[in-house]
């Protein structure tokens, strides 16, 4: 079952990326990045999902509007390593529903990517408003997240849905949420980042050194 879903998702993601890549080439933006050709594999699975809430907000620099963040999801995704090899040119933007995700690690070794996904809180449901059952997770057009605004994000979402990219199955989402546990309440962005670094050491142990870079002693 997982394999057939994976194939469908792969095909759909490839279609989105291919279309986006064509437009991007026509615009003369850049030569094809290595990641765009490999990006057909996209996001293979949702491994971990934990909601967070902060006492102090921070700015989400992965969108042009830089919205203020007080809550959201900490996710661990199973991704195709070749899609997430860091490079200096445009990289495929990772989307979760109608939001851009901030990558904490690279994931090109383990295939496991720890990300922060900002969201408002849905007080009725008692979790982030960004519903993982409703929103797909995919790699979109290679571009700079800091230049991506709500309009562009909406266009990406439409293209993804048109390409048949669907949210993960409920069972997978539930499983990931169970792994994540309940809300974690943190003071601020620094604590969030350091907590995310501990997830990196767990899920992407090959990036232990990167995590240590995030966990240096805090000056007091």
């Amino acid at each position, binding site marked *: 079952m997982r394999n057939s879903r994976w194939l469908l998702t792969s095909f759909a993601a490839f279609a989105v990326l291919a279309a986006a890549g064509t437009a991007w080439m026509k615009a003369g933006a850049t*030569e094809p990045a290595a990641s765009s050709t490999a990006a057909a594999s996209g996001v293979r699975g949702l491994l971990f999902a934990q909601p967070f809430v902060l006492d102090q907000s921070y700015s989400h620099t992965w969108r042009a509007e830089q919205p203020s963040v007080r809550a959201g999801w900490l996710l661990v995704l199973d991704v195709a390593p070749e899609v997430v090899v860091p490079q*200096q040119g445009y*990289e495929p933007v990772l989307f979760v529903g109608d939001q851009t995700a*901030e990558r904490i690690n690279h994931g090109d070794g383990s295939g496991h990517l720890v990300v922060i996904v900002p969201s408002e809180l849905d007080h009725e449901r008692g979790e982030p408003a960004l519903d993982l059952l409703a929103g797909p997770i995919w790699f979109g057009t290679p571009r700079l997240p*800091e230049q991506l605004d709500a309009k562009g994000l909406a266009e990406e979402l439409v293209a993804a849905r048109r390409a048949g990219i669907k949210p993960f199955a409920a069972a997978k989402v539930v499983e990931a949420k169970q792994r994540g546990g309940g809300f974690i309440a943190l003071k601020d962005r620094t604590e969030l980042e350091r907590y995310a670094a501990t997830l990196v050491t767990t899920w992407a142990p090959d990036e232990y050194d990167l995590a240590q870079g995030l966990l240096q002693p805090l000056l007091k």
Partner: protein
Amino acid sequence: MHRDSPSAVIALLRAATPLALMAPLAAQTFSTSTQISGGAGSISPEPRLGVLDLELAGETLAGYPHFHYTRTFEIGKRVWMAIDPTRHPAFVGDTADIYVVAHQSVAQWIANGALIDARGAPTTFTFQPGTIQANTVTLDNGTLNADAGDSLGVPYDVIIDFDQDGLLGAGDAIDGFYGEPGFFVVEDPGQPGPHNVIETQYSGGSFLGQDTYYPANLLTLGQLPLVVISHGNGHDYRWYDHIGYHLASWGCIVMSHQNNTQPGPESASVTTLTNTDYLLTNQHLIDNGALVGHIDATRIIWIGHSRGGEGVARAFNKVKTGAYVPVNYKAKDIALVSSIAPTEFLTVAQLTPFDVNYHMFVGASDSDVNGGPTTPIVQSTPIYERSAGDKTFHSIQGAGHADFHNQAGSCWCTGPSLIGKAGTHPVVLSNYLALIKHYTEGNVAARDYFERAYDDFHSASIPSNVIVAAEHKDAVGSGNFVVDDFQTNTGTALSSSGTAVTATVTNLVEALMQDLDSSFSWSAAVPMNGMCRAISGDVQRGAVFDFTASATYAVAVLPAQKDFSDDVALGFRACQGTRHPNTDTWNQPASFGVRLEDALGNFSTPIDFGWYGKLTRPYLRTGTGTGSGWANEFGTVRIPMESFTRHNPTFDLTQVVKIHFLFGSVGATLGRIGMDDIEIIAKGN
């Protein structure tokens, strides 16, 4: 080496020379500045009337003009002195003692003219008629002391003691009396400096992780420059130990920080700005306050790699325009911005570095920010071109994107003759030290590392197989006279200074230096092939042409600018055109000739600038079209003005009417050449 006008010093001597203390000097007459010659082309008719301040120290050249008067010698390298007997005929037949002494100021010479040779004893020499080669004397074989602590360069003067009395006095000649010392001997800037280094890692919170390096004996060192390093995308702030340890060992405080590169270079620029401020604000929290009182916030250097390289250029732009207002520093406090293989996502306006001293490294083998013509994003060089400050550029053949940091793994490189970190790091370390010493301390000796042709002078730590194309241009407004920078008067018959251009080279085109067809394949329809120097919205123009036989390119000189005698050098930059059939046929480093014409129709002897250093053959990398050869690699050429009168004293440097560039007859017999920035380099630059 003397760069300052002697007039002020003459006045000082007249007013302040204690006659009783300095009888030999007091006995002479400082009647005119031309007698205190040494400027290019001027010859004193009565050199024995005073102390003659001359260029003496230098190095031999294998061809005409046979000798290069230079400022700086690296330890272990031979030092010569030379006299052109056709310019100083009065010397011929005289036997003199030649001294190398510790540099003294004019005041010190007045107080004590005793000559104490740093080598132990002077060299006795009898001046010969004929050529400068016959009057070239080895002063030292590399044994002179170069230990200047954490500075660069021990200064020396050279004295020709004609009366052999062991005193600097009337009739003697000296290199180093006015302005700069005669020469410097420097430690190899590619080697570690004298200080042990402490490294400390800490975090101030999100995107405030910092890795800081400082001299272990910081307490004794006063205030030091601050070097901030901003890494690239997918890189880590702890991957720049090589730069941190090196610069700290030479007396810098170096901080490498977490850089928010993934959203893009605008975000990265913010972390450069905030981390600089954070360190300055919170230094009391680091290592029990070890840095407090030792960071000079008026001498800040920003180094950025890749997206971080774009970020530092953007960061300066924001401070300069007021888009960001730092707490602890201002735009004028940024002494140098250096971008290593920077991306170029942002706009021309956002990535204009204005008047900051700007530097750039690129690797010709970079497979990430590859410098190719397919997209502006991977073209670093337009940012460099936009700088109006002092600017320096190094393109390193065989260096990949990851060779600039020190983390193991893929080099992100492609092409032949790869040099890895072992070849790349010595280029980086030695040039950073020279640039930083110059722009934060005013160190004069360091200038030679970026002012002279790379082949002429570079750190001995750099392996001999490393090929570097280097450029340097003094800031706009530095006093140099621009003969032709191709920015205005865009026809091929008129220079930007408004004078006539006559040329017999073929296919001469002046245009924006932009490769327009996204390919390095040679096409006559794209004359600016290989020129990845401008993108849409840029204005950097240049000229290209080719030759297969003897041909010339001559530009007339404005009458008001005809006197070159007080100038330092004729400068320009040139390159070979990549993948052009002529370049492929020549297939080696190239040079051509330069000569001047005076108002009487006399010509200086043609100088092949290749004796100082040639234009690199474009890196033989394939891809992005057919053929071999990557982006065009400019090299800056500076021909000392005095060399145009070598063995030709009748040539009148005060009446220059035309500059002739000679192709085919001197240097390469055929070629495709790009040319730009023909300038007269003023004294002091």
